[in-house]
């Protein structure tokens, strides 16, 4: 079944040595356990000409081994920054504090050599813009093999054969490994990037908005593919997206971020069923739902206002200026993180959440909020 395809030489079967090595490699990779990640008090700051600011502040969450975590929030809330920093891809001179324990080992602040041992081997990345994230001058097969060869002591032929397996997994024909990125459509490129991310069966998969650049049909296909593969491989995954519908379908746990901070986190079902934070309620309103038979159509409600300027973060709760339920204390005091059951929310008024949920479902509640910046 495994064959080395070549447009120039036609198909030729892989040599027995390659097959034997591939089998050993596959076995070795299949034994890798799913990873456990604990992020604790992660803050990420930049120095700019207009002063220092924190893109991400005091973010904590946990990804139990073998589970999915959805990281949601609107553009610029810091969710991609978290993922990039976990991968060690933050720009130079970024100030990172806090801990990120991958199977107990802190991966923040590792030097290049130590980082190389973590990257792709234990933690791999599905990038946001698959359109530009493949090198235009190398064929896809070479780019996947490169990742394998960087970490596993196997021959080129074996690495290639492994790449063929991965292509089969994402539903691409092996012959196309010889093609260059510009010969692929957007959906195929995204699948190629997924194939690359799976090549070493890393314990933790970071999917950074894997479907953002695609049309809705392709988005749904890719997400189905990711879910299928995930069920098959049983690794842990962080899925960054602004589509809470996708999180609801895919992830056991959810973290809702707002302006660089965690607004609410907890088991997906509970958080979406009974949100504690007004921002989560607003976010939920902004997504379409299929109306129940006979019930009136639910209008989409958007949250008025804009995200605060992180160079001059407002005192108190960062969502206060856009929150219809904000009181005087919200503008003054940073809200504590309150635990209710398995859910955690950073809000002063979690005790009134049930009352807020009813109000938040009405469009008027949000319409009265105007001009708040």
């Amino acid at each position, binding site marked *: 079944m495994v064959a080395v395809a070549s447009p120039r030489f036609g198909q030729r079967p892989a040599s027995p040595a390659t097959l034997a090595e591939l089998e050993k490699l596959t076995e070795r990779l299949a034994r890798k356990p799913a990873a456990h990640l604990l992020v604790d008090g992660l803050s990420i700051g930049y120095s700019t000409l207009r002063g220092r600011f924190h893109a991400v502040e005091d973010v904590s969450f946990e990804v139990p081994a073998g589970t999915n975590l959805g990281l949601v929030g609107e553009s610029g809330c810091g969710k991609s920054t978290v993922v990039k920093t976990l*991968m060690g891809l933050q720009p130079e001179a970024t100030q990172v504090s806090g801990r990120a324990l991958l199977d107990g080992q802190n991966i923040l602040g590792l030097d290049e050599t130590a980082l190389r041992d973590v*990257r*792709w081997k234990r933690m791999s990345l599905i990038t946001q813009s698959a359109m*530009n994230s493949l*090198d*235009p001058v190398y064929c896809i097969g070479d780019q996947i093999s490169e990742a394998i060869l960087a970490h596993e002591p196997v021959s080129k032929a074996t690495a290639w054969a492994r790449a063929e397996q991965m292509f089969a997994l994402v539903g691409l024909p092996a012959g196309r490994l010889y093609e260059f990125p510009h010969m692929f459509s957007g959906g195929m490129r995204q699948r190629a990037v997924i194939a690359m991310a799976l090549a070493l069966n890393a314990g933790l998969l970071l999917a950074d908005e894997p479907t953002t650049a695609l049309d809705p049909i392709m988005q749904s296909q890719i997400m189905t593919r990711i879910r299928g593969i995930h069920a098959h491989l049983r690794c842990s995954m962080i899925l960054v997206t602004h589509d809470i519908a996708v999180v609801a379908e895919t992830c056991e746990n959810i973290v809702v971020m707002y302006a660089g901070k965690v607004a609410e986190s907890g088991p997906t079902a509970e958080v979406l069923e009974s949100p504690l934070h007004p921002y989560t309620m607003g976010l939920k309103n902004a997504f379409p739902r299929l109306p129940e038979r006979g019930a009136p159509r639910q209008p989409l409600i958007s949250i008025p206002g804009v995200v605060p300027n992180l160079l001059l973060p407002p005192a108190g709760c960062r969502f206060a200026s856009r929150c219809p339920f904000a009181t005087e204390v919200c503008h003054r005091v940073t809200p504590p993180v309150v635990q209710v059951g398995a859910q955690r929310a950073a809000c002063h008024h979690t005790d009134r959440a049930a009352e807020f949920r009813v109000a938040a479902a009405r469009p008027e509640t949000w319409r009265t909020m105007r001009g708040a910046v």
Partner: protein
Amino acid sequence: MRAYIFRRLAQSVLVVWAVTTIMFFMFRVMPADPTAILLERGLTDEARQALLEQWGLTGSLWDQYIAYLGNILTGDFGSSFLYRKPVWEVLTPLIINTLWIAVPGLLLGAALGAAIGTAVGWAKRGGKLERSGIFLATIIRGVPNFVIGIALLTIFSSTLGWFPSFGMGDPGETTGFARYMTLDFLHHLALPLIAVIIYFMPENLLLMRSGVVENRTEDYIELVRAKGVPQRRVAWHAARNSMLPLITWLFPALAETIAGIVVIEIVFSWPGVGRELVLAVTRQDYPLAQAAFFLLAVMIVIANLAADLIYGKLDPRVVYK
């Protein structure tokens, strides 16, 4: 692909023809008398007329042109007025001499420029390596190349006395190819070769650097880094992509560079074809100058064709139609 090469070759022939024609008429409209260099030896009017006839400079311009084109097609560029020898006999050894400094000089200049340019482009932005690299490259690029030559001569020849200051070595001891295989020749070769390298390197360096700086922030570089390959390998991806604009510039730039090599040959009294070309023009030695220019035109046309073909090899997105 084959059709593309064929069409490009046909174009090239056209270009070479145009160059030879322009050259022919340019030399003819220059208000000077090629026999003048011989006049001082006491040439009578009859002798001068005979000489002009012998050189094919009588008759209408059109007749001369037809005869000239016919000769070129058979590979005959005539005889040098000054040396009284067939042009190729004069030029061949000179061409070889020039190739000795031009080929390794340009190759090393481009390769070193690209390598250092990558290092400078990959270095920390605003760091020491980046700043000094750009500074030096810009300075050298701004300095006229004869100054580079003279500086090299002053330092390594006059002051330190490490290298000879002119020529190609003691002539006549050995002949043929063996002549180039002596330590003495290499000793003489060193300074002009270094001058060519220094002259050609900075622009390669700066182009490569700006390419790498542009590419290092691309998304695909981030993914390569995320894969956990060594830093060197990541830099290579950026460099490999930066080669594309470099190649586009490099081959056409060779034409300009050859002009620069003429100057270096003169500074180091290197008996190359460039130096002879300048002399031939000042001496009104038409056949010699025409042959030399013809050679340059052919070289540049070939260089451009090579650039297009190499570009296709380097960039899979290029399709020949």
